């Protein structure tokens, strides 16, 4: 029997317990080697983050599907969208926002709640500005007479940016919630806030990477 099947692949962790329970002793015999494992319900962070990673896996496939459709459909054609220069600026906004969010996370770990609150505010603001920047890019294209149905490359431009933008919007809602919470967070909710923040940061960085991928695809493929 290879060891890989014997040992748990991953640490166990979970969400808050639906039931208050006292930790149970190791009274039911010994199966060797699992003493370190928690045997009840423990802290949320790991479990929630695991789910976030899975969600990111799923979203990767979503964008991979759009991208491969782009490659198949637009690849053989010569027409491309001339990308509005504001996209460079937007990319910078999103990257900066990711950076600030990471900083905020660090502050929250150190217990600096005021600093976290401030940084969260900036990160959310930059996220919002990114969305407005994307809208400005749409308007710039529309002003040139390039619309959704103009040609395949433009169709994909709007679809990819819209799909990405909607996901950014979702992230913004989470960030906004965290921002409001961080203003009046007490010790009891701090842990929950940190878990949400951690997941949102992960998601936010992921969206940053997806944006860079979309940008590369649109600019150079």
């Amino acid at each position, binding site marked *: *029997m290879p060891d890989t099947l014997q040992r748990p692949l991953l640490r166990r962790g979970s969400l808050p317990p639906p039931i208050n329970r006292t930790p149970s002793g190791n009274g039911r015999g010994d199966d060797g080697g699992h003493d370190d494992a928690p045997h009840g319900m423990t802290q949320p962070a790991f479990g929630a983050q695991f789910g976030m990673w899975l969600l990111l896996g799923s979203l990767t496939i979503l964008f991979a599907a759009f991208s491969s459709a782009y490659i198949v459909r637009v690849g053989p054609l010569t027409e491309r969208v001339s990308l509005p220069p504001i996209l460079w600026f937007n990319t910078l906004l999103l990257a900066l926002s990711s950076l600030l969010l990471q900083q905020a996370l660090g502050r929250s770990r150190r217990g600096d709640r005021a600093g976290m609150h401030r940084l969260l505010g900036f990160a959310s603001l930059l996220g919002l500005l990114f969305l407005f920047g994307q809208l400005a890019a749409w308007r710039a294209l529309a002003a040139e007479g390039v619309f959704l149905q103009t040609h395949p490359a433009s*169709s994909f431009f709007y679809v990819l940016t819209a799909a990405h933008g909607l996901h950014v919007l979702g992230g913004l809602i989470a960030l906004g919630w965290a921002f409001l919470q961080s203003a009046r967070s007490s010790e009891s909710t701090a842990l929950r806030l940190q878990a949400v923040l951690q997941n949102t940061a992960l998601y936010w960085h992921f969206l940053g990477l997806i944006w860079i991928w979309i940008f590369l695809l649109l600019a150079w493929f």
Partner: protein
Amino acid sequence: MAHETAQTHLHEPRSFWTRYIFSQDHKIIAAQYILTSLFMGFVALVLSWLMRLQLGWPEHPIPLLSKLFPGLYQDGVLKPESYLALITMHGTLMVFFFITAILLGGFGNLLIPLQVGARDMAYPFVNMLSYWVFLLSCIVILASFFVTGGAAAAGWTAYPPLSGVQKAVPGSGLGQDLWLIAMAIFIVSSVMGGLNYVTTALNMRTRGMSMGRLPLTVWALLITAILGLLAFPALFAGAVLLLLDRHLGTSFFVPYVVVGGEHIPHEGGNPLLWQHLFWFLGHPEVYIAILPAMGIVSEVISTNARKPIFGYRVMVLSICAIAFLSFIVWGHHMFISGMNPYLGTAFMVTTLLIAVPSAIKTFNWVATLWRGNLRFTTAMLFAIGFVSVFVTGGLTGIFLGNPPVDIQLTDTYFVVAHFHIVMGMGSVFGIFAGLYHWFPKLFGRMLSERLGRWHFWLTFVGVYGIFFPMHYLGFLNVPRRYYGFSGYDFIPPDAQTIQLLISIAALIVGAAQLLFLYNFIHSWIRGPKAPANPWQGTTLEWQAPSPPPHGNWGPELPVVHRWAYDYSVPGAPEDYIPQTVPLEPVPVEDRGGDGVGSGGNGNALDR
């Protein structure tokens, strides 16, 4: 202890609404999924009767049906456009809203937490949301029957341009839009469910429940959930693009076409692109339907053979191999689609390779029966029925996976026979095996075994009566998705006789399902109370009361000491040892096979 028990009940939701309707308890959600998907399956079954009536007795007027289904019938005769709506909706409802929903939503919710020894899913709120979003998708897809033009009529594969151009077919109006929207909603729901199943199976295993001790049901559901997470988003993307083609004038899939003399000014769209996106989901979807059934069947066979599942490790590896390969075989649905023939060769290799792990699993099931002490419970009968239909339907896949032979057989009744037997009946037999096996655990009452046996025999014999003769129609090259067959000289008169016999068998099998429905409802209300472990199983769920209370386990989580299949261990007092029983040194002699220890109590041998 009394103090802790009081605490156990502290957090149990008390109002009817939070307890049974907006419940976050995985068992209630499992029941909600099972009831909803059984209803959807029943609707799909009725649709198949309507099709079979037309195919068995072509254009024979039945005035009653005009009254029952005024939208579908005219003067008692099924309208041709209704027939297309029926095939589309029958397929969609069965594949997604019945089979996928009941296996992942129903059995996944019920079994994963119970069998890994968790109190609930990792994210109970997301779990609840997943069900309600699923229910919404059910409502949307059912609503499509009642809109102008009727339900979608482009087949469950929704190939554009038929599904992309409103003029192409009557169902390509609002019905097709609702179909696409319902699918998108369904995908959101299944992603939410999938996150839960994977996280719970991996992270919420109780103490001692190593991966090598997981029952095969959990393995199968885990791998299936991963498949779902990675496959469904492709169709979501496809649905979005197709909706844009339909309404906003883009040309992702629809090229410049002239439908009925009217110019539809798209530009250069690629219909094959949709087929690739659809089947990138569609083929893993086939395994999403069959893998959990395989897990259920492994569990039921082992329990009722009173014998460890044969080759546990290889079974796990085969599940993983099938799951991996299922992502790179989608092109075998497209051999004659105009796809590059060299690409076809690659897909052919992967497709036929997938038969190897499938064969391993089949032989392992038979080997589990070998020298067993078989108990023919209804669940066991259905599990054996599964092995039979899986062999029969799997073998015909070897014809269709081989592109030269596929040329002749694809889009004929041979394909209909193939996928109905292997994927349709395979999943359905797995579902029934699971329902008869775990109904006592979920509802706390026993199903009638006597009715169950009637149900099994009528279904098993009847199903072969329906689908085996379809191979003959396939040999005769009778094309599928035809409303009628008059006027074709290459179809001999025998074909109509076969169609008639198939229709009769289909109506009998349909009636047998009513028997099940009666059994289900009657036993739910009046069935005898179920003991905690009616089948003398080893896995954790049988250590909880039937039905398990909120939180499943009382004050202490179970601790696992051995693998899931300690049946008929030589020297043990009973012919099963639950996973929670600590290891004792067991006599080593009289072990069958070459007795290589595997699973949990391998270390018992070392002592």
